[in-house]
């Protein structure tokens, strides 16, 4: 079991109840992380999209995570 630190912004921050949470899980990919969070926080499934960024870059589902990565949940963006 590894512990990942996950930042959250906007509506995802409100659903998770904080700017940064710790996630303990066996899986080591972006897809595993997203599923883990969707199970823990079902309200996330109501979003139009839920991307994950690793070290400030949008990540693919199959990307492997390391505990030292800067991981962030990116709900639908609406800047401008």
């Amino acid at each position, binding site marked *: 079991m590894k512990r990942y630190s996950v930042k959250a912004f*906007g509506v995802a921050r409100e659903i998770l109840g904080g700017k940064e949470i710790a996630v303990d899980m066996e899986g080591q990919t972006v897809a595993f992380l997203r599923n883990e969070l969707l199970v823990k926080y079902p309200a996330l499934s109501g979003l139009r999209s839920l991307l994950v960024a690793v070290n400030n870059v949008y990540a693919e589902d199959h990307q492997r995570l390391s505990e030292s990565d800067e991981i962030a949940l*990116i709900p639908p*963006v609406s800047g401008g």
Partner: protein
Amino acid sequence: MEYRTWNLLLFASENFTFIYSLLLFVQPTYRNMIKITEKPIDVQKVIDTASSLGAGAVNVFVGTVRNNAHGKNVVWLEYEAYETMAVAEIRKIIDDASHRWPLLGWAVSHRIGTLRPGEVAVVVAVSTPHRRDSFDACQYIIDTLKEKAPIWKKEVFEDGEEWVSARPELAAKV
């Protein structure tokens, strides 16, 4: 000529490439800017930053807070950014734009925090030799920024609040 002057000239000629690349490196820093800020945006400063003597056009987009959405009055907007990544994403967008159009200067400033109707939320300015490229590049930058930069806004109405575009049913109404 004195010994010292000769030495300086020799140094300059031997290190011409190094000095020239230093100048190239330094030069763009005052012409270009990406900023995420809680303070009101100085639109003229953004325009000045993007301006260039070699340019025949400076194109500027100013995004402002609208006082209505979904037929309701907007009281204020709350903007939030993942700042380090937003800067990185905007940098990529500028890089793409500079491969497609001959950008001589550019500047992007995005405000975060609480903004009321009429306030400036974002400014994009680019300068190019001719006007058509400046329109196209500026439009590409703001359109792609809205699509990709990790920045969010929440509309606060008199009777509730909503993160913009977050949920499918509301996105469909926009």
